[in-house]
């Protein structure tokens, strides 16, 4: 139930921010934050599946290429799992490093799909303008979103 509510709230907030921000600014990737909040609370394999599904949903709702976000968020979830096993997720510094690492992994997944598609449909240069503002906004919003998720969602049963 709470997962569903968080999903709806995330969709609502994402659409509000997309409408609110100036056109030159890419909105923050709240689905990435949703996955980051979900990964410690699910079994590792299921967290990857959830990330893939959320990514697929994001691809479908954004009328983009199927797999682009799916692979990106799967990469992010996997990176989070790996990093969380090496760093302290409970400490803010460790959590910050995990989130940043997961975010970079998400972009690595995006670029992998772009490369896989042959670079002729969408190229890395097309994303370069998005990366900076999305990274800044997403990482700036991450502490708030994760703090809210910590209070809103059930406990972290499978934290790294």
């Amino acid at each position, binding site marked *: 139930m709470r997962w569903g509510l968080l999903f709806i709230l995330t969709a609502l907030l994402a659409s*509000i921010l*997309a409408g609110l921000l100036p056109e030159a600014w890419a909105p923050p990737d709240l689905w990435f934050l949703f996955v980051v909040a979900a990964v410690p609370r699910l079994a590792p*394999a299921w967290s990857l599946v959830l990330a893939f599904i959320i990514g697929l949903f994001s691809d479908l709702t954004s*009328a983009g290429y199927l797999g682009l976000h799916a692979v990106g968020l799967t990469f992010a979830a996997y990176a989070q799992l790996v990093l969380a096993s090496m760093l302290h997720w409970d400490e803010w510094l460790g959590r910050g490093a995990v989130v940043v690492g997961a975010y970079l992994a998400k972009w690595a*997944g995006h670029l*992998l799909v772009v490369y896989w598609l042959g670079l002729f449909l969408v190229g890395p240069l097309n994303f370069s303008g998005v990366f900076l503002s999305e990274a800044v906004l997403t990482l700036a919003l991450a502490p708030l979103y994760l703090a809210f998720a910590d209070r809103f969602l059930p406990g972290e049963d499978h934290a790294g």
Partner: protein
Amino acid sequence: MVRAVWLGLTLLGMVLSVLTARTAPTVAAELSARSAPLFYVGDRIGKNLKAAAYALVDRRRWRQEALALERQVAELKQENLRLSLENQRLRRTLKVRESQAPGVVAIAPIIAEDPSGLFRRLTLGLGEADGLRVGMPVTSPGGLVGVIIETTPKRAVVRTVVDPESAIGVRPADVPGRGIARGRPPASLRVRFPVEVEVKPGDLLITGAIGGLFPEGIPVARVTRVIPPGPGALTYDVEARPVVRFSMLEEVIVLRRL
């Protein structure tokens, strides 16, 4: 296990991307169109918030622009007034130059009037440094003002035609004959004519003394009353009102000394 799932999902994603690349964005767009209402509310909220923010910013900017425009209008009005006054002044100068004398020395502002009431003298804002000298006629577009009787480097004093010490040679504009106009403060002149000169109330008196201080033909006063001469008198007096309203003067034109 986890790595296998990750690799499997990644592979699935890549296969999906290849398979749907040809149909993309058709497939995704189909769902996007159907899921649009889900995001519509949030998008509208966000856009409305942005519009409200822009409206606030615009309103502030418009207010600033309005204030700037008000300032600009005020400056332009002031400039317009200044140009208008300058235009009037130049017209008056031109009129004086055309009608009264070719030798305009300066246009001088009146910075003070004699406060005593006994004399009718004006202080000009220009002086010797500006070329003003004692004896220079002072006029205005309306008519004769007086003559400079005192100068300092930056100031000059004008004795007006209604000053009690003023004596000007005048003649009626329409009939022959000459007379002497003496000032009678605060605002009239007493003009003495030979009995042969016939003037009546309303006649215009102009400068006209031979070898006098003033160029000929400058309006001085208009006759208001004729005082009948006594038996056997050789002269008679008339009262006249100067054509120049000294209280309304803001600047005067100083002419070259004859």
